[in-house]
């Protein structure tokens, strides 16, 4: 009964979405206010209906209702409750439900935080989001219904893929989807502006916080995915350039470009058409990612179940949504003015160059991801594109982008002077180059790529320091701390996010340059030395988990005779799917991770063991986290808080205009 309620709620949600996607947009076109006002209640109603469906599916998992096909396929009576809940998004149908659920969360957020928008704009935004929702709900109800019954009911479920039985699974997909789907808001803003022909600085100002929030979620989501691969796959890699990883990275690149482009549109009125295109691009890539993961056109570790019928549906959906919005763009964008002019050496110029580089990097990732498909389609054979390609194209594109990232914030809008910039930055450059050359030598091993990586990281950090110092001397304030507090939060957000990137680059460089690994056969009591640490294998013991049997190894780690830690890597066999999983043991640290995983059992209680010493690896994820914090700080800026407050006190329209121009 409960699953049928969920199914019915989805059908009702589809009806509401159809209303939300048509009547408000029509109302905005003809200027009918009562039609436009349908948008808000429809968005909220749709949210409640999808929430109900989501809870129904959760309930079916909680009570182990194996008469629901999806529940039987992705869970098992022995699976612990938190993984049964996470199993909601453990496979295709449920992850679509999560997609729509998150879309409706964003809709509700828009309906609450859009009081300062003109009514027609809000009606169009919610209308566009409603149309996107129609597509996904139709997809679910036609070819991917999570509530489909299995008659007769299965005696027990087939269990969740053991790879997904991990705490990361509980939180990683919702984060990632918050980011993916969050770009639908920027997309809806862009389309609404194209519909209404009101593509101006105000549009950019309204879009900015939404884009930044979505970007923060996506940053964390991608970082968590990478961290998950690191400790779950058992061989210490953290990024594989797998199609599905790329599918999450491409919207991130587009979103990053969009944030910067919107900043220019907001402040200077330029790049309008470009910002709109990026907004469309970011969301299109989110949809493309869904297509790639869910249709099975590319083989990937993530493509668990595939079905050509579903692929066709998504393809048609992509054609309608992306093709439609690009047509609208081609039709409307030429009328948008160009905004203020600027010289090549100016902050606009540098942001433009950065944007072009980011989009070029995005294009090269897209090409690498789809290239196997292109070749196959042209009947030129089956190949796979791997890390060598991506590493080769990515570094040369990112190097100038990061170089510009250091200069951009110091350059003036409109027109800046190169000699002046060179003088202001000469110390930053000197210090960065010298340190980047010396540090690897001190660490005992110099290579050009390590120096380049460190140079880029140091360049970001030192230019931030120069910029901060200059701004502080210009700021009035009694004390140093007072001066720091005077700087706007939006500026701090940028500084923090850029600094996060510097941490990230440091982590990547140090790991690539200095990690060491060893594959050893270890008898009980035998020791191995790696990176200054001594590892002693103390044998394994058997134990039973809720739905698996495991051999747990015990490895004692010491350094210079002092005990450091004891690590417990595991080899698990999940009984239902009869699948073996390697659970690595990690001893994290600020400057290094120790990473141990069990290979195969050998005779006499010996095991093959993999030992890794990974310097600075946690900086990779730490850096991403700092970037996301930067985004959060940026949206807490005074002018956004003012925007909410203005709405609350309902000031007359005239004063509102006046204040807006002041802020």
């Amino acid at each position: 009964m409960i699953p049928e309620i969920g199914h019915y709620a989805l059908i009702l949600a589809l009806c509401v979405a159809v209303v939300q996607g048509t009547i408000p947009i029509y109302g905005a076109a003809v200027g009918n206010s009562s039609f436009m006002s349908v948008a808000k209640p429809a968005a909220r109603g749709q949210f409640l209906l999808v929430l109900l469906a989501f809870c129904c599916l959760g309930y079916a998992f909680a009570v182990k209702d194996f008469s629901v096909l999806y529940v039987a396929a992705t869970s098992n009576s022995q699976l612990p409750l938190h993984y049964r809940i996470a199993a909601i998004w453990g496979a295709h149908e449920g992850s679509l439900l999560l997609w729509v659920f998150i879309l409706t969360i964003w809709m509700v957020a828009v309906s609450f935080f859009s009081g300062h928008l003109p009514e027609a704009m809000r009606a169009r935004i919610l209308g566009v989001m409603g149309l996107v929702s129609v597509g996904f709900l139709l997809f679910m109800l036609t070819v991917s219904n999570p509530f489909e019954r299995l008659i007769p009911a299965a005696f027990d479920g087939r269990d969740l893929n053991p790879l997904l039985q991990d705490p990361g699974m509980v939180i990683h997909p919702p984060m990632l989807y918050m980011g993916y789907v969050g770009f639908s808001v920027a997309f809806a803003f862009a389309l609404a502006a194209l519909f209404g022909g009101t593509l101006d600085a105000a549009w950019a100002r309204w879009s900015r916080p939404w884009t930044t929030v979505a970007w923060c979620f996506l940053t964390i989501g991608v970082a968590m995915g990478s961290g998950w691969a690191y400790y779950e796959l058992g061989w210490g890699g953290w990024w594989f350039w797998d199609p599905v990883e790329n599918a999450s990275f491409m919207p991130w690149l587009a979103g990053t470009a969009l944030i910067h482009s919107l900043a220019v549109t907001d402040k200077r009125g330029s790049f309008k058409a470009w910002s709109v295109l990026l907004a469309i691009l970011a969301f299109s890539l989110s949809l493309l990612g869904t297509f790639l993961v869910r249709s099975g056109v590319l083989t990937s570790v993530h493509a668990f179940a595939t079905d050509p019928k579903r692929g066709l549906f998504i393809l048609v959906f992509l054609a309608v949504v992306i093709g439609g919005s690009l047509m609208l763009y081609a039709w409307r964008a030429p009328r948008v003015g160009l905004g203020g002019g600027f010289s090549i050496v100016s902050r606009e110029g540098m942001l433009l160059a950065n944007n072009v580089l980011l989009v070029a990097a995005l294009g090269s990732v897209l090409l690498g991801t789809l290239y196997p498909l292109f070749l196959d389609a042209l009947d030129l054979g089956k190949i796979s594109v791997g890390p060598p390609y991506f590493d080769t194209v990515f570094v040369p594109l990112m190097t100038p982008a990061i170089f510009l990232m250091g200069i951009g914030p110091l350059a003036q809008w409109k027109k800046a002077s190169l000699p002046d910039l060179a003088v202001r930055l000469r110390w930053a450059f000197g210090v960065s180059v010298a340190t980047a050359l010396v540090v690897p030598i001190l660490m005992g091993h110099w290579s050009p790529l390590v120096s380049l990586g460190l140079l880029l990281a140091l360049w970001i950090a030192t230019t931030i320091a120069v910029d901060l110092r200059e701004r502080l001397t210009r700021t009035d304030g009694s004390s140093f701390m007072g001066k720091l507090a005077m700087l706007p939060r939006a500026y701090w957000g940028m500084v923090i996010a850029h600094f996060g990137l510097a941490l990230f680059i440091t982590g990547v460089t140090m790991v690539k340059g200095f990690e060491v690994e060893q594959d050893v056969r270890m008898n009980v009591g035998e020791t191995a030395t790696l990176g200054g640490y001594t590892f002693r294998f103390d044998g394994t013991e058997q134990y039973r988990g809720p739905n698996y049997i495991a051999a747990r190894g015990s490895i004692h780690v010491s350094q210079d005779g002092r005990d450091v830690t004891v690590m417990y890597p595991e080899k698990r066999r999940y009984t239902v799917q009869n699948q073996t999983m390697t659970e690595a043991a990690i001893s994290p640290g600020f400057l290094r991770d120790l990473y141990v995983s069990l290979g195969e059992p050998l005779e006499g209680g010996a095991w093959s063991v993999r030992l890794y010493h990974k310097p600075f690896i946690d900086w990779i994820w730490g850096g991403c986290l700092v970037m996301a914090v930067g985004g959060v700080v940026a949206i807490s800026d005074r002018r956004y808080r003012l925007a909410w407050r203005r709405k609350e006190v309902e000031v007359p329209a005239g004063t509102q205009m006046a204040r807006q121009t002041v802020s």
Partner: protein
Amino acid sequence: MSRFLIPLGIFVVVLAFLGVGLTLNPRELPSPLVGKPAPNFSLPQLHEKDKVLSSTDLRGQVWLLNFWASWCGGCKEEHPVLIHLAKSGEVPIYGMDYKDRREEALAWLKEWGNPYPLVAVDESGRVGIDYGVYGVPETYVIDKAGVIRYKQIGPLREDVLQTKILPLVRELQSQ
């Protein structure tokens, strides 16, 4: 206007490729085993567990080896195709019940129909490893000399059967 059409143009090209991509099968991987002798097996039969089905008994004829299981959704999908093929009598399909429970496998065949003259039970998945099984269902075409000639990963579809497998089988049978 024209330069604003560029994104649309690029998208149409990508879309066309994605469309073609959908009709292709990325799982149709060239298997290293094609052209090699099929790994030998000798396993208990499903219906009579005291008897053994051995690959050497099948020498001298062209046959299909179909890995399946009662827990596998794709097997249900290809099942009508197998039944149809079995009725035509053109080529025998031997089943390999892969990592399954005997009672459930028997119940499954009873309910949906049995296309196999004989089924072997690979309870541990050992033979599956020999054959390099990615996942069930998988189907192998094996010739009179016991050499693997073709491997289908995933459900067998009617069109693949008509355009690839049956022509191959006829050719091998005439040799």
